[in-house]
């Protein structure tokens, strides 16, 4: 551990660091209590707590529909991204050429391109493909945006994988497909799961591209929140926000738990 010894300047620096951490937590400190307010307007609860905004959330078909749509789209997009991304990462790892490395970097593009540029590109292409405002269109777009996360996590897992295991399997008569299913996939499962969670979150959280390529039919949760913030700010959005925080935290905890188990 780095030790600077005792000094008032170091203490001040630490204090500032903690202040920074509090600044980071401030929005969650606010949004969770606001969701339990008794008032119909945005405020911290001052006359006890109420679940009315959660009741409103779970009885309102608009919010429920949005949650359902978002879950469906995120699960399907994650599955698509995990299948193609994992296969691709394994293939590139096995090919291990300079050209393959450049291809891998190219596959990280959706992460690097600013969302507004991707949104423009998707919109124009989806007009051509006739995919605007369709489930298929949103799922494909989200899967494309999620693929880099899968490539990164699976590639990281593979870098710790002893390639000779796979060679042994191939020498003993397994073909590439069997070796992948029986040897590689079980060993890199933590990386695949981690990629799946990240891919799910990438879709679950996506707003900019969705706004561009959908209109009436597709109403994901982020889109509903977006409309909620712009039209009428009411504490139901805080309840939704709290729910989103809880689901995101749960997904992150699953990922960290898997990672710590994989490390142990």
């Amino acid at each position, binding site marked *: 551990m*780095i030790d*600077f010894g005792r000094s008032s300047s170091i203490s001040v620096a630490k204090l500032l660091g903690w202040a920074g951490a*509090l600044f980071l937590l401030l929005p969650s400190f*606010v949004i969770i209590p606001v969701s339990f307010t008794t008032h119909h307007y945005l405020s911290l609860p001052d006359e006890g707590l109420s679940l009315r905004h959660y009741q409103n959330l779970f009885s309102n078909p608009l919010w429920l529909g949005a949650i359902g749509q978002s879950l469906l789209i995120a699960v399907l997009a994650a599955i698509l991204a995990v299948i193609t991304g994992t296969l691709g990462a394994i293939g*590139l790892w*096995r090919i291990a050429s300079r050209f393959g490395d450049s291809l891998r970097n190219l596959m990280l593009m959706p992460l690097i391109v600013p*969302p507004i540029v991707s949104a423009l590109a998707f919109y124009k292409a989806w007009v051509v493909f006739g995919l605007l405002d369709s489930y298929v269109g949103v799922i494909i777009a989200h899967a494309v945006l999620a693929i880099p*996360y899968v490539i990164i996590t699976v590639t990281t897992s593979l870098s710790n994988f002893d390639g000779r295991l796979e*060679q042994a399997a191939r020498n003993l008569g397994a073909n590439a497909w069997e070796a992948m299913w029986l040897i590689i996939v079980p060993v890199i499962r933590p990386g695949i799961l981690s990629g799946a969670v990240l891919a799910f979150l990438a879709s679950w959280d996506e707003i900019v591209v969705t706004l561009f390529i959908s209109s009436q039919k597709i109403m994901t949760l982020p889109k509903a929140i977006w409309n909620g913030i712009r039209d009428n700010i009411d504490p139901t959005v805080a309840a939704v926000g709290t729910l989103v925080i809880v689901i995101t935290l749960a997904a992150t905890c699953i990922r960290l738990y898997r990672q710590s188990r994989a490390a142990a």
Partner: protein
Amino acid sequence: MATEVAAGTSRRKLLPIGNRQDQVYWLFVLPVLLCLLVFFLLPLFQVFWISLSDPAVGPDNYIKLFDNRAIKRVVLTTLRICTITTVFSVVIGYMIAFTVAIAPPRTRSMLMFAILVPFWMSVLVRAFAWVTLLRSEGVINSFLMSFGAISTPLSMTNNEFGVLVGMVHYMVPYAVLPLLASMDGINPSLIAASRGLGAGPVQSFVKIFMPLTKPGIFAALILVFIMTLGFFVTPIILGGGNTVMIAEYITVQMQQTLRWGLASALATALLVVVLLLIGALSRSMDMRKMLGGG
């Protein structure tokens, strides 16, 4: 010579993966490659093509980028907001990362939690939370007014201040991660040696610790700046139309004035700047490590 070649081939035969088998793995790569090519790279290229062909073929849209006053204003606003956000995010991020780097393990995990919770929090929910905090009937104003600290509410949303707060808050965790990676890479005995040779804590920090974190600072500055350039949600929600950045301007060109060529040229220019900065960044740091592979 001949024996050498023979030995070479026989050695290669011992290795189980020959060229023929390697071909199989291209089939593994094919689906993802096709997917990205058809659904991402070609659409991006189409944007580039539109920027050169709509309304007429030629570089007109790019010339307009430089002599249109509205665009100049938007670009300047964007650069100003991004620069201020980057500086604040990296300074705050440095203080947090420093506190994490010298903290004992349990304090460290508490701080990491504080960093990662907002990192994973939806950008929309965060913007909404800041509206709740900052608007004139918001939490901060009613708190200050109940104490009589202010008599009229401070105006903190629908202006640049609100945008900056929201963006700095979004970017700080992205600054912390590369900074922390570079701080964790510092050998603790260097600091111990500097202390042992008579340097005070501040001197050890300024002369030893800080210079060693320079690559991290560089990476954090570029990473944050790149990400802020394309910001969409936060400026719209917290800026309320008064601080139009590039992303919002592109949207307006597309949806209201229908100037697709101009919107595409602006998007292409944005992408080129981002790619150039990424190139500078990848030379200094392992991109995959930084983009959250861990």
